[in-house]
């Protein structure tokens, strides 16, 4: 269960007046103050993102809009490290080119963006250039953010400047030559920065256009869900057809009925964005934070709009998929019964919204099985929200199943109950296990037996 990353800071120390309480005569022997005597002023990240901004605040409308847009942009997921304050940065984003640490975007003038002008902020969001005129790495998803309107950029900066100043400088990036040369990003931009400002499609509904604005702009869904070329830029013409990052696969979000959202209703997509769970799936991996810090905090109307837009994305070409090896399927079935059936049940139907049903499942049928292997090896926790706080979790099986067993059960699951996907090799499991650092069993404080 995830513990809140920040806890109460300084107590107010405000003690209410004691005079009028009329407690004289009680056996306590002294008058005690009413409670709470020690209120807590700290907030959780979600509380921070949802903290009400009073209508009486100067510039309230713009600040409220900015706060909402910071949720929609999922800024907190990347701009918060474990144990750190929201938006103070320092989160290590592992890219194929090295590790990039997210920036401090609190109102701190020295280490954050408290001193930035609206023009500087807009240039960063639109063109990927910081206040010093240096190129930012596209780990900041400016190829998507450039679709955001200037008014929205201004609102976000105005809001960010009201956040508590946190003095924190993230570690320097760990990028090998030549990726450590920021200047080269200029060439990358020339080659790949094709996106334009957002233009509404007059043939589509206002809701579809709102969804398009959120999905392709601030929401930067393609940042994970669109396949990338060898330089980390979107592959042309394959929008939202499944991407891979940090040992996870961000599934296909197109109309593909097998690997994408083709079988999902608009309402099911919207429910998933709200609670991280629906009758078909649970949002684990990197998507868990997206649910917690972004989509669960948006309006129903915006989630519906995103779903409406996503449901119109064209599917890519379907590959030919051979029949799986019968022996692997038989071995996989036995492992499934032993290790998986207690939650997902023998026939794979699971318990909707608790333990995802496995039949006709998009995540399981992605061409790249890394996501499934990752879930089996390391486990996966669904995103939580005030509406669905239970952090339902698939446990890790790295300690229990061999590479071959993970491969066999993956092949079995990928080809049962209506699923159809390429067989999984033990080699791919082995290399993932290595990169997840799960080759040795680790014991925790709770592991030992006492007698």
């Amino acid at each position: 269960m995830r513990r809140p990353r920040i806890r109460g800071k300084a107590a107010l120390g405000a003690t209410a007046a004691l005079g009028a309480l009329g407690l004289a005569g009680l056996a306590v022997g002294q008058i005690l103050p009413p409670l709470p005597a020690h209120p807590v002023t700290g907030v959780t990240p979600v509380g921070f993102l949802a903290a009400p901004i009073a209508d009486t605040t100067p510039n309230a409308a713009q600040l409220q809009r900015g706060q909402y847009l910071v949720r929609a942009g999922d800024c907190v997921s990347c701009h918060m490290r474990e144990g750190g304050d929201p938006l103070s940065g320092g989160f290590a984003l592992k890219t194929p080119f090295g590790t990039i640490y997210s920036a401090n975007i609190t109102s701190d003038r020295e280490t954050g963006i408290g001193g930035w002008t609206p023009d500087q902020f807009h240039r960063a969001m639109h063109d990927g250039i910081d206040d010093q005129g240096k190129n930012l790495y596209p780990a900041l998803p400016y190829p998507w953010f450039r679709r955001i309107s200037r008014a929205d950029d201004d609102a976000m900066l105005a809001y960010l400047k009201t956040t508590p100043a946190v003095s924190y400088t993230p570690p320097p990036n760990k990028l090998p030559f030549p990726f450590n040369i920021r200047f080269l990003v200029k060439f990358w931009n020339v080659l790949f920065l094709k996106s334009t400002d957002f233009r509404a499609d007059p043939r589509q509904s206002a809701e579809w256009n709102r969804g398009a604005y959120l999905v392709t702009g601030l929401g930067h869904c393609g940042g994970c869900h669109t396949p990338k070329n060898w330089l980390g830029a979107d592959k042309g013409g394959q929008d939202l057809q499944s991407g891979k990052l940090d040992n996870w696969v961000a599934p296909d979000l197109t109309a593909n009925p097998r690997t994408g959202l083709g079988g999902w209703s608009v309402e099911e997509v919207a429910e998933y964005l709200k609670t991280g769970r629906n009758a078909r799936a649970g949002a684990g991996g990197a998507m868990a934070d997206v649910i917690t810090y972004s989509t669960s905090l948006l309006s129903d109307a915006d989630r519906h709009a995103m779903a409406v837009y996503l449901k119109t994305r064209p599917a890519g070409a379907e590959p030919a998929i051979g029949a799986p090896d019968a022996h692997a399927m038989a071995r996989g079935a036995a492992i499934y019964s032993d290790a998986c059936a207690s939650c997902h049940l023998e026939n794979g139907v699971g318990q909707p919204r608790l333990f995802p049903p496995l039949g006709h499942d998009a995540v399981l049928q992605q061409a790249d099985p890394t996501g499934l292997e990752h879930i089996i090896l390391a486990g996966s926790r669904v995103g939580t929200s005030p509406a669905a706080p239970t952090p339902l979790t698939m446990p890790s099986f790295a300690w229990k199943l061999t590479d071959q067993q993970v491969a066999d059960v993956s092949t079995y699951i990928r080809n049962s109950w209506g699923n159809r996907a390429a067989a999984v090799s033990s080699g791919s499991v082995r290399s993932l296990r290595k990169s997840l650092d799960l080759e040795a069993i680790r014991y925790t404080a709770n592991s030992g037996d006492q007698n």
Partner: protein
Amino acid sequence: MTTTLKPVDAVLVGFGWTGAIMGQQLADAGLSVLALERGPWRDTATDFATGFAQDELRYMWRHHLFQNVTDDTLTVRNHLDQEALPMRHLGSFLLGTGVGSGGVHWNGQIWRFLPSDFQTKSHNQQRYGAKAVSDYDLTVQDWGVTYDELEPHYDTFDKLCGTSGKAGNLNGQIQAGGNPFEGARANEYPTPPMTQTYGPTLFGQAAAELGHHPFPHPTGNLSQPYVNPLGAQLGKCTYCGFCEKFGCGNYSKASPQTTILPYLMAKPNFTLKTECEVLRVELSADRKRATGVTYVNSAGEEFFQPAEMVILSAYVLQNVRLLLLSGIGKPYDPKTGEGVVGKNYAYQTMSSVNVFFDDKLINPFIGAGALATVIDDFNGDNFDHSGLGFIGGAYVGGMVTGGRPIEMIYTPQGVPAWGLEWKQAAAKNYLRSFSFSIHGSCMSHRGNYLDLDPTYRDVHGRPMLRMTFDFTDNEHKMSDYVTDKAVEVAKAMNPREFKVNRRTGSWSVTPYQTTHNTGGAIMGDNPRDSVVNKFLQTWDVPNVFSLGSGAFPQNAGYNPTGTVAALAYHAAHEITTRYIKAPGPLVAA
């Protein structure tokens, strides 16, 4: 050196069911709340995942989830004239530790006590005469709280857990299929009863033939998925049969982890510190107000945590010990009958009947902690005790809590406990047998009590708790009477044979019975007879509350958790509506 920390509004000592319930209620009221738990953090997927939760050797035999008796235990004896010795291996009861504590490794049996159970003294006195409650040196009392006062809080706990069951008395109307003897319920159970498997079904048929009133055991192993009022989700039980002594990996057993923690841990005004053991409650110079608690963390560092309120939410035995160590309330003296802290320690009176068939496959591995069909005809005062020579009673349940191979293989009368003959009998009977549990009340007795041991000390140098306990003739007579009724049901099932395991002789610390220890910090309507008032507030130090089964003046014939939870909600309601506005005694002494 002791470091003084920043003050909080309320500190909770122990973080199992009562700590989680009170923590949620106080945090929702806006208080800054700190819970101190001596054991580790525990979470479903990492600490009792389905991939390894069903490990009898680790959890049942090696006590993985329980208190480590090499750090701290208690001393036990049957009588005043014996020397108490430390319990060096957990046996008769299994003390919890860690987040969720006993709420993690319970069976999920959720009961309400009968309305008459709360008036044990006055009710029985009125019906059976003064002698009925003073025979055998019984020291039974009324609780100072009524069923009707607790009903809304029982209801809250049912809704929290999603309890699966069938009401037998809805607002005074008797309902078919439920327990006709239960106190009136305002609402039906949140989820329907579990599907009764073959063993419990056979029990129910036989009991009904004898004119009894069988019904499905109310359970926190859920019959269907459930979302509770805090938004927490529980799954449908898979009948794996590993509940008691185990954590549930399927999110289908009600526990603090599944019902409260997802909500509570996200609150900014709630903090939990694990592996922090409270040594004592600190009092002001006049000893009328607690100033906070002193605790030690796992690195051996000592801290003073100032707090406006101290809530003792540890297990009964730790709560009583902390009261004694902190000098809150007058210790009980069994020789004079003076004093209250440690008084009326009681337990649960258990017996069983095993039935063996040739022609019926029970398949006990399809089980759950509260999978049972039960009769309540011989519990509490549901039957006429005239001339029987005892008060109290027991429910009888045809239960299949599991078919765990080390612990739960029943063999017939006369079969040795090991060797070839045992193996043959085990193989023959494993699939064809099950057990009835006779779950009886335990009245309080002048000589049964808790105090500090004069000799033995724990790892921190504090005196251990000393338990002086034995079953009285009242309990033996009660247990024999209801066990005989269970034998009648067994006979009516026409088994090949049955085996009766009666409650005989003195209480022994060795065989497992139940972890239903009660009393020692008992509740009542005046400070001469009780440690806490009806809101579990100590009479002597009004900003200290002692939750849990320690408040029971004697134990009824039911599993205690439902009543423990209802009392916690009842106290929390009074604290959040009255106490926090004007801290002080909630009941005039």
